[in-house]
C-alpha cells in the first residue's frame, strides 16, 4: 500500500477516525500497532514476523542491558543485538552479493567452485527498521536513554506505519518519549501535516512520475544516445530521486503529524548546498546522522588525526553506499561522495579557503557560484553509478558525457527540462532552511490558501496516477 494510492487514503482515514474515538490511551497504542502491522502485511504478510522477531530481540537486549551491572555483559548484549540485526540484513540483502564476490575472488586464484546463488527474498523496509531498531540498543548502551519498559510501546516505535517502509529513520530517543503521553494534533499541526502530505504527493506524482519514463528510457540503453541526451537523463534522475524520496518523506512526516507525532526532517533542499559536507546535512538527514553517530564517531571520527579522519570518512560513505544496495555500483557511489568529503575537508584546511569564504571578499559571489556548480556536478555525476544498471553502463555513460559524444540519438524531453526549471526556480526563491509546514499555518489566510490551492491544482491537472513505486522501497 503506497501513500499515493486510494487504498492508503482509505486506510489512513479509517486509522485516524477510529483512533480519535478510542478512549483508553493503551488501547489506542494497541490499535496503532495492529494497524501498522496490517499496513506492513499488505506488502508481504509473513515478513511481519521478521519485524516482530527483530523488535523482541532488541527489546530484550535493552532490558538486559538495563539490568546488567557488569559493563562487559552490557557490551555483550549490545554486540549480540547489533550482530543479529546486521546478520539479518546481510542474510536477506547481501548474501548473493557476498557469494558472487567470494566466487569471483576464488576464480582469480584458479579455483572454480560451483556458483552459489540463493533465491533472494528482500523484506520491504528491512534496511530502515533494522537501523532504526539499532538506535535503541546503542543509545541504551551509551546510557542516552533508559531501556523501554513497555513492550507495546517498543513494538510501536519500530513498526509505526508512516516511517516503516522507507523512513525517516526515527531514533528511539525521539519517538519513545512521544508515546509517554497521549497526543493529539493541534489544528495548526493538522494543517501542517496535510500541507506536507500534499507537497509530497505533488513531488512524487507530478514531478517524479512524469519524468520517470524518459529517465528510464535513457538509462535503459545509454550507449545509443548522445551526450546532450545523457546529461538530460542524469539531471532528470537527480530530480526524480530527490522528488521521489523527499516526497515520500514529506508524506510520512505529514501522516505522523496528522496523528500528532513529530518526525525529524529528512531533506532540507540538498541541491542548494554549497559543498558536499552541507549536502550530507541536507540529504537523507536521518541516514547521514545515523552514519555519523553510530559509525563515523565510533570509528574515531576526527579525533584520531587527519589521516584517520579521512579513512573514517571514506569507510563510512562506502558502507553508506552499500546500505543502499548489494552492488558495487552503490559502493562506488558512496566512494565518490566519500572522496568529495575528503577533498572538501582538505579545501577547508587550505589557505585559499579564507580568501573566498569571507563575506566581504570580492571573490565570494563567484566562489559561491563555483561551489554550487562543483557540488551539483559531483552529486549528479555520482547518481550515474547509483542509477545505472551495471558498472560498464555507468562508465560508458560517464565517458560519453565527458567526451561530449555527438553521435547517437538525441531525445529532448520537455518533461525533464520543465522539471529542472521548476525545481531550480524553487531552489532560487525559497530559503533552504525554511520549514513551511511549521510557518505556513501561522500565516494569514490568503498566504496559506494560495500555495495550498496551487499544489492541489498541480495535483489535479498533472498527477500521474499509475506511477512507479517509490524508488527507496527497493532499499
Amino acid at each position, binding site marked *: 500500500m503506497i501513500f499515493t*494510492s*486510494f*487504498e492508503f487514503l482509505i486506510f489512513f482515514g479509517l486509522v485516524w477516525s477510529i483512533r480519535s474515538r478510542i478512549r483508553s490511551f493503551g488501547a489506542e497504542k494497541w490499535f496503532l500497532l495492529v494497524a501498522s502491522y496490517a499496513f506492513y502485511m499488505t506488502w508481504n504478510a509473513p515478513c511481519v514476523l521478521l519485524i516482530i522477531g527483530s523488535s523482541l530481540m532488541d527489546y530484550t537486549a535493552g532490558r538486559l542491558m538495563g539490568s546488567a551491572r557488569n559493563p562487559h555483559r552490557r557490551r555483550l548484549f549490545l554486540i549480540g543485538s547489533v550482530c543479529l540485526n546486521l546478520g539479518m540484513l546481510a542474510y536477506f540483502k547481501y548474501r548473493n552479493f557476498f557469494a558472487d564476490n567470494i566466487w569471483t575472488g576464488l576464480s582469480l586464484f584458479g579455483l572454480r567452485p560451483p556458483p552459489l546463488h540463493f533465491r533472494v527474498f528482500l523484506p520491504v523496509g528491512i534496511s530502515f527498521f533494522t537501523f532504526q531498531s539499532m538506535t535503541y540498543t546503542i543509545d541504551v548502551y551509551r546510557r542516552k536513554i533508559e531501556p523501554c519498559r513497555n513492550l507495546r510501546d517498543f513494538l510501536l516505535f519500530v513498526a509505526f506505519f508512516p516511517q516503516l517502509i522507507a523512513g525517516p529513520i526515527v531514533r528511539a530517543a525521539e519517538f519513545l518519549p512521544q508515546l509517554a503521553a497521549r497526543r*493529539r*494534533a*493541534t*489544528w*495548526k499541526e*493538522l*494543517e501542517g501535516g*496535510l500541507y506536507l502530505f500534499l507537497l509530497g504527493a505533488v513531488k512524487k506524482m*507530478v514531478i517524479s512520475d*512524469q519524468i*520517470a*519514463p*524518459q529517465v*528510464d*528510457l535513457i538509462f535503459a540503453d545509454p550507449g545509443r544516445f548522445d551526450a546532450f*541526451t545523457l546529461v538530460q537523463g542524469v539531471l532528470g534522475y537527480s530530480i526524480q530521486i530527490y522528488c521521489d524520496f523527499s516526497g515520500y518523506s514529506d508524506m510520512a512526516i505529514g501522516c505522523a503529524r496528522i496523528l500528532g507525532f513529530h518526525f525529524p526532517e529528512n531533506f532540507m533542499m540538498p541541491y542548494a548546498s554549497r559543498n558536499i559536507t552541507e549536502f550530507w546535512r541536507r540529504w537523507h538527514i536521518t541516514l547521514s546522522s545515523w552514519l555519523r553517530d553510530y559509525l563515523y564517531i565510533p570509528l574515531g571520527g576526527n579525533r584520531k588525526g587527519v589521516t584517520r579522519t579521512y579513512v573514517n570518512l571514506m569507510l563510512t560513505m562506502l558502507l553508506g553506499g552499500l546500505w543502499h544496495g548489494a552492488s558495487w555500483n552503490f559502493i562506488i557511489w558512496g566512494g565518490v561522495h566519500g572522496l568529495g568529503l575528503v577533498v572538501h575537508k582538505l579545501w577547508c584546511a587550505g589557505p585559499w579557503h579564507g580568501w573566498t569564504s569571507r563575506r566581504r571578499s570580492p571573490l565570494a559571489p563567484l566562489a559561491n557560484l563555483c561551489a554550487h556548480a562543483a557540488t551539483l556536478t559531483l552529486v549528479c555525476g555520482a547518481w550515474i553509478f547509483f542509477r545505472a544498471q551495471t558498472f560498464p553502463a555507468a562508465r560508458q555513460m560517464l565517458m560519453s558525457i565527458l567526451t561530449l559524444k555527438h553521435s547517437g*540519438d*538525441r*531525445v*529532448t*524531453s520537455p518533461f525533464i527540462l520543465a522539471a529542472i526549471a521548476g525545481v531550480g526556480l524553487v531552489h532560487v526563491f525559497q530559503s533552504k532552511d525554511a520549514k513551511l509546514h511549521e510557518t505556513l499555518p501561522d500565516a*494569514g*489566510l490568503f498566504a*496559506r*490558501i494560495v500555495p*495550498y*490551492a496551487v499544489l*492541489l*491544482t498541480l*495535483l*489535479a*491537472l*498533472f*498527477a*500521474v*496516477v*499509475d506511477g*512507479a513505486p517509490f524508488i527507496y522501497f527497493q532499499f
Partner: protein
Amino acid sequence: MRPTHSVTSGLSARRQFWIVLLTTAVLGLGASQLTARWLGFQTIAMTPYDYGAGAAPVRAFAASSSLGYYGLDWGAIATNTGWSIRRYDIPAGSPCEMEAGQELATNATASILVVSAFDLDEGFFSEFRCALVPLGRTFQDLRESQASWAFSKRALSRYPEYWLKQVFPTAGSSMGVLVGLRSKAQAWRRSGGPSDKAVLNGSQAQEKTERVCDWDQGKLLRNAATLNASAQGTHFYSGPKHQSLRRILDRARMRGRVVVVVLPVSPAYHRLVGDKSATEFETSLAGFERDFPTAQFVRLDRLKGLSDDCNFWDLVHLNVYGRAIATRELEQRLAAR
C-alpha cells in the same frame, strides 16, 4: 482537537483550518473543472454516431475506440455498403466498454467490432471504463481470467479514481491535459489569435496528415516511453477485455452477421511491445476465430500496404492516408461476403 485562538485574525484555529481547507478544495476543483472545459475534455463515455439511411436493409451496431474513429471513414462505408450504421465511439475503448453499446443496440441485425493489438492489450485502460462497466463485472472478469493481484489492484483502483473525476475531471488525465495544452498552443500559433473554432477543432479525423515516419528518433523514443509507461510495461491479452470480447461475440452472433475488424498499429508500436506480445495477440485472436467460425475477421493489420509508419499519425492511430487504404479494403471485404 484542542482549539486555539488566533491572535492575528480573531478567528479560532479550528475555524481558520476549515476555511483554508474548504477554500483550497473549491479552488482546486474550480481549476480542474475550468481546465477540462477549456481543453474540451470529453466527459461523455460513449457517443453514438449514425451513418447511412435509417431504413437500410442492414442495421449495424458498430463499436470502436478512437482507432476506429480515425482509422475508418464510416460515412463512406455506410454509403458504399448501403448499411445503416450506428457506431458507439468510446475514447480508448475496448470490448469491456463496447458491451454497454451492444446492450443499447437491440434492433441491430449486424455487428461491426473494431479492435486492434492496442485495444485488446489489457495493460491499457480507458478512463471511461468505470462509467460503463459495473464494478461487479470487473471483479468477475478478473477472477475468471485469474488476473494477478497487481493487475487486479490497478483495474479496481480505476473506480475510486473515476468517482474522484466527477469533481476533479482532470484527475488522472495528466497526458490529456498536456496534449490539450500543446494543441491549444499550436492552434494559437497557427491562427495567430484565440477563439478560432475551425482551427481549434483541427483534430478532426480528416485533418490528421502527420506521419510517424517523419518523426525524429528522439520524438519516437519519447512517445514510445510514455505509451509504455501508461501500461506500466505490462502487455498481455488474457484478462477482462478477452472475457468481454467473448461475451460480445456470443451475443452478436445471435443477432446476425458479425464482422470483427482488426486494425493495424504502427510498426514502431510493435517494436515497443515486442514479439512475445505480438505472439500472444495472435494466439488470442486465433482462439476467437476458432470459437466463432461464422464471424468474419477482417485482418487489416495483415494488409501489406498499411504496415508502414507513414500511415500513422501516432503510434496507434491511422492518418488520412492509412484510413483511405483501410476503408477501401474493408468495403471490399464486406461486399465480398
